[in-house]
């Protein structure tokens, strides 16, 4: 693939997925993995999980992983193309959902008693729930290659749910455990 072809496929892929990022962003991880690793082979499984870890550890909105995936896709054409592809990928994933959000925000209160709005509010939650669990399984399998890594993930999950300790603490501890060579 030439640099321009790669760019085109990246933009198209994320434009197509944008409107399906229901429930706040993470729901698309499995689809990203499918497109970026399995369909196009822009990244290896290992690189995908590395970039996911990087994006989650960095401050800022959750969709920034898409930029990193675009960066990875463009990397083989040099750093300049990588950056162009990265910014384009982020714009592609945000643009359609932003337009829909603008329209919805303008009309939401006018639809107060519409059955469409009520059904939409109630019905979408359970679908999101199913997607989130499916995404979690995919992420666990992609990120973890050893029993210790799985144990670490489950411990983080448990402590995030049961305590009020900041997630940053767990990111720090796991990062340290990683550097010291415990994770793999």
């Amino acid at each position: 693939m030439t640099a321009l072809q790669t760019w085109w496929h990246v933009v198209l892929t994320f434009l197509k997925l944008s409107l399906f990022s229901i429930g706040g962003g993470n729901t698309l991880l499995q689809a990203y993995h499918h497109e970026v690793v399995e369909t196009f082979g822009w990244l290896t499984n290992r690189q995908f999980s590395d970039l996911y870890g990087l994006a989650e550890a960095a401050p800022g909105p959750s969709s920034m992983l898409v930029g990193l995936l675009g960066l990875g896709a463009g990397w083989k054409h040099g750093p300049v193309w990588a950056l162009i592809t990265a910014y384009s990928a982020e714009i592609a994933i945000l643009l359609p959902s932003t337009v829909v959000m603008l329209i919805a925000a303008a009309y939401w209160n006018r639809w107060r008693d519409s059955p469409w709005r009520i059904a939409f509010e109630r019905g979408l939650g359970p679908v999101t729930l199913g997607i989130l669990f499916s995404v979690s399984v995919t992420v666990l399998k992609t990120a973890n290659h050893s029993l210790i890594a799985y144990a670490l993930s489950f411990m983080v999950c448990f402590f995030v749910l049961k305590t009020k300790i900041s997630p940053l603490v767990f990111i720090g501890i796991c990062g340290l455990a990683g550097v010291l060579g415990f994770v793999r």
Partner: protein
Amino acid sequence: MSLWSHRIIVERRQWMTSESFVTGLTVARLFPGPNQINMSVYIGSIFQGLPGSLAAVAGIILFPFTLLMLLGLLYFQFSAIAEVNRLLAGLAAAAAGMALSMGFKILEVYKTDYLALAIAVIVFVSLQVFRFHLIPVVLVAGPVAMSLYWPRGPGR
């Protein structure tokens, strides 16, 4: 995050009423797109329409995004270094745990709603066991779930 922005936007700056802020939060959560981005789109649009939205999104994302892309470039340049790989393996394990906790948090809400749990299980099995793609699953499950939750009766 939303508590903090409420304090600044509604209480201190008085840019909008608390009610329209809550409307924004609801729409931002329900509609596709990251919640924080959608919320900035909404707040920006209240002021200046489209240009306001674009400015708000740029404001919230441009700096962290550029920083992250520089980190990404470093990653692709230096990922052969063992320590970098080991650090990222640790970070990924933590992130996977947090992704899992999101599901459990939402599960709390639907603990006694068996219809919701059934829909969630069917969606999960289609994606994870049958390995259907997300787009067709959402296109089928979304309308089905909406019709199952369609308000009925005079009381609603």
